[in-house]
């Protein structure tokens, strides 16, 4: 026979006004298995908690029901008190007779009867309850950071500085990401590369960081604290251990006219190349699509000129497995750059803006490269078609963003600010030029942001036209921009020399595939979903995986860096203990009765169910059963409702507990 204690709280008058608490307590005393029942003014107060602790000891209680407010309010309080009294905290439950009873009913008789019923339900539940111990999971104190842009770099440096090993993976030949491409950054107009490259070098030199560039995630197995990640090291055709980075291969390479991706196709590079001079690592890679040696088998100049003999045409993709305890995903974004609707995509194109058809219609990142001192024009604003200095530049904001009819309804967040920056950079470089900006709203939340925008409008002579552009077309050397000025209420036409589109920020190509490998969720735009929009903005619903930067949604640099450091802090919290403790409300399989139909595995939202082979002492396979990894299980119980034989059971919500409650109705 159980010895349950029932404590009925008055909550001042909050409960006792409509519920006869004394009657509830005395009725509770009559329930079989209840050894002690009382009522008290404020159970959550110190004296109230002491009353509970004392009763546990005096009456040798083996379970406690506190009839008071919602468990969402004070469950932790009373479980702590019960625990202090030597009771397993999971044998303490709350009967919610305030939010679910006294506050929502006025008839004292009915409310009292309901309160008694609620207490009875919880008593039955506690009677069938089991002691549960927190689950401990060993933690591998080594982190994987995916993506070597500013988010990944910041997260990697923070974790490494805390003394933990970090594996940083980047799919391009160099780390740096989009930030390395930028000219100057808002709102301070400091040179992006000047603040970025030292951090890249720090990564390269950090004793705790292992850098894998030109590598991708092949497979992810395991769970929080214990991931096994298979990396694919794409064949670089250059042996990183031998290469000294002298660069002679690049100067001698006969293929010199390949559009450089780093310059958005506006500069040129060789077939063996580093993306940009400050690349980290400074080890070239051979672009096999464009290399004469790979295409026709005749050339081999780079191998001949390479002193250390680092060029290796036979190199193949290589795989390695890294054991890590936490993953930071920092894969960044791409810019919307489609001129027509791609097949099967819900996102419409912008053919009417002539992007891709009119050479002098460029996107914001191309403008960054034109404005960058290290860019293809050496920092001069020259238009791509004829290399002339444009005297009239039209900037169009919200291209793709906030355009529901085009398939994207979100705001890309950074365009208002970078367009303002572009008008300033343009004005600084072309004094007699005129910048026009078509915009919907100027969104400038951020420290110093609105002041910056105001400066562009008021001091740097950018003409802001509130309205959208309907169409662009080439007319001789000019591009006619047809749009509307909705403040004046007229249609306007501008003959521009250069048009810059502030195209939307989109999730990286393949973001969905990576998410599937990691087992994290993503929204309809393929941005990764955080566990809670407000309170868990850097965690994924999948434990042990954290988000940093624009892979989660459009973000500017300060926000990205903040989130990267936050993700790093989360990783360090995880790494602060050798063992991870988790709430023991997880599913367990009864291996004796499980027949291995694996319906539980099919429905598990966490991928926590694995197959387990049961073997006899001779090693013969007896049967295959399901196994729930307690480190991964989220505790929803969908498996148990699905299991035909109920051979998997969710601790804390067992069938026995629930049935006992139903029986007591």
């Amino acid at each position: 026979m159980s010895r349950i204690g029932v404590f009925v709280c008055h909550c001042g008058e909050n409960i006792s006004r409509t519920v006869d608490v004394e009657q509830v307590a005395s009725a509770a005393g009559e329930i079989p298995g209840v050894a002690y029942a009382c009522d008290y003014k404020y159970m959550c107060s110190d004296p109230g908690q002491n009353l509970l602790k004392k009763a546990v000891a005096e009456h040798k209680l083996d379970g406690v029901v506190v009839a008071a407010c919602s468990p969402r309010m004070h469950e932790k309080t009373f479980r702590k008190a019960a625990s202090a009294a030597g009771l397993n905290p999971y044998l303490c439950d709350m009967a919610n007779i305030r939010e679910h009873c006294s506050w929502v009913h006025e008839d004292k008789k009915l409310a009292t009867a309901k309160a008694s019923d609620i207490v009875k339900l919880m008593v039955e539940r506690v009677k069938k309850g089991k002691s549960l111990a927190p689950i401990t999971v060993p933690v591998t104190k080594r982190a994987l950071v995916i993506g070597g842009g500013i988010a990944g770099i910041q997260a990697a440096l923070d974790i490494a500085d805390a003394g933990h090993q970090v594996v940083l993976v980047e799919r391009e030949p160099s780390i740096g990401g989009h930030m390395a491409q930028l000219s100057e950054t808002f709102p301070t107009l400091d040179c992006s590369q000047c603040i970025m490259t030292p951090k890249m070098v720090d990564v390269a030199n950090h004793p705790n960081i292992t850098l894998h560039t030109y590598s991708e995630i092949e497979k992810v197995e395991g769970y929080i604290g214990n991931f096994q990640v298979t990396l694919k090291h794409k064949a670089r055709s250059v042996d990183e251990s031998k290469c000294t980075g002298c660069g002679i291969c690049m100067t001698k390479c006969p293929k010199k006219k390949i559009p450089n991706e780093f310059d958005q196709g506006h500069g040129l590079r060789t077939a063996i190349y580093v993306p940009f001079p400050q690349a980290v690592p400074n080890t070239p890679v051979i672009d096999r699509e464009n290399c004469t040696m790979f295409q026709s088998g005749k050339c081999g100049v780079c191998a001949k000129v390479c002193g250390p003999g680092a060029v290796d045409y036979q190199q193949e993709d290589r795989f390695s497995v890294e054991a890590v305890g936490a993953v930071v995903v920092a894969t960044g974004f791409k810019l919307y750059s489609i001129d027509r609707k791609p097949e099967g995509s819900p996102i419409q194109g912008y053919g009417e803006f002539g992007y891709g058809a009119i050479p002098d219609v460029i996107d914001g990142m191309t403008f960054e490269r034109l404005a960058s001192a290290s860019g293809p024009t050496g920092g001069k604003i020259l238009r791509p078609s004829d290399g002339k200095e444009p005297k009239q530049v039209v900037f169009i904001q919200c291209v793709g963003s906030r355009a529901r009819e085009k398939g994207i309804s979100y705001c890309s967040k950074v365009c208002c600010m970078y367009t303002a920056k572009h008008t300033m950079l343009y004005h600084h470089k072309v004094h007699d030029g005129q910048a026009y900006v078509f915009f919907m709203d100027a969104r400038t939340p951020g420290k110093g942001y609105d002041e910056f925008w105001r400066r562009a409008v008021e001091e740097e002579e950018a003409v802001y036209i509130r309205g959208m552009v309907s169409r662009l077309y080439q007319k001789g050397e000019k591009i006619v921009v047809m749009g509307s000025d909705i403040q004046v209420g007229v249609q306007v036409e501008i003959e521009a020399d250069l048009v810059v589109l502030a195209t939307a920020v989109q999730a990286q190509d393949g973001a969905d595939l990576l998410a599937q490998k990691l087992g994290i969720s993503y929204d309809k735009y393929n941005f990764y979903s955080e566990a809670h929009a407000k309170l868990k903005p850097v965690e994924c619903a999948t434990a042990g995986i954290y988000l940093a930067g624009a892979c989660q949604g459009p973000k500017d640099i300060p926000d990205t860096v903040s989130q990267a450091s936050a993700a790093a802090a989360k990783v360090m919290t995880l790494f602060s203990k050798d063992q991870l403790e988790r709430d023991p409300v997880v599913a367990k399989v009864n291996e004796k009765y499980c027949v291995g139909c694996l319906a539980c595995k099919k429905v598990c939202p966490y991928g926590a169910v694995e197959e387990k082979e049961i073997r006899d002492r001779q090693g013969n396979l007896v049967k295959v059963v399901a196994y729930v990894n307690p480190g991964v299980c989220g505790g929803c119980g969908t498996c148990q409702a699905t299991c035909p034989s109920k051979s998997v059971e969710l601790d804390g919500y067992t069938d026995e507990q629930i049935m006992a409650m139903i029986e007591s109705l």
Partner: protein
Amino acid sequence: MHAEAKQHDFEPKIVAFVCTWCTYAGADLAGTSRMQYPANVRVLKFPCTGRIDPVFILRAFQKGADGVLVSGCHPGDCHYMAGNFHARRRFAAFRALLDFVGVDLHRLQFSWVSAAEGGKWVEVVTELTERVRAMGPMLEFKSLEHEEQWSAFQAMADVPGVVNTPELKEAYDKI
């Protein structure tokens, strides 16, 4: 939501199976907002609607529930990502089965009530309670509890559709 205590001849027993993250919290919000609704509902908390087994609903009816409510997070809001999606299919099938067996589905309500929808909780509970009150007690399962085998046989012997082979008849007569 009547302020005055109204006397009813029949107080139906309503059992609510709810998930802890959305509907339970929604009911909490109804409480903190001091909304009023009939005191007939007894709430059983689950981590997720995905945990709710159809057997529980069956058992609740057997144990005297006159109406059952199952409520969880709106699609896409599930704390466990997909539990409510699985529950949705399971209960779609279970409803069809109960309907085929002759259970009046007006006694079984499903809803999505988020943590922010205290008002909706009140509306759903009130509507179900009043509907079931008007329908009267659920006697089908309750009456089964008191019946023994064979009892209905003789009375039903001539009802079409009831199998009544000579062999069976003979067997029954022997009893």
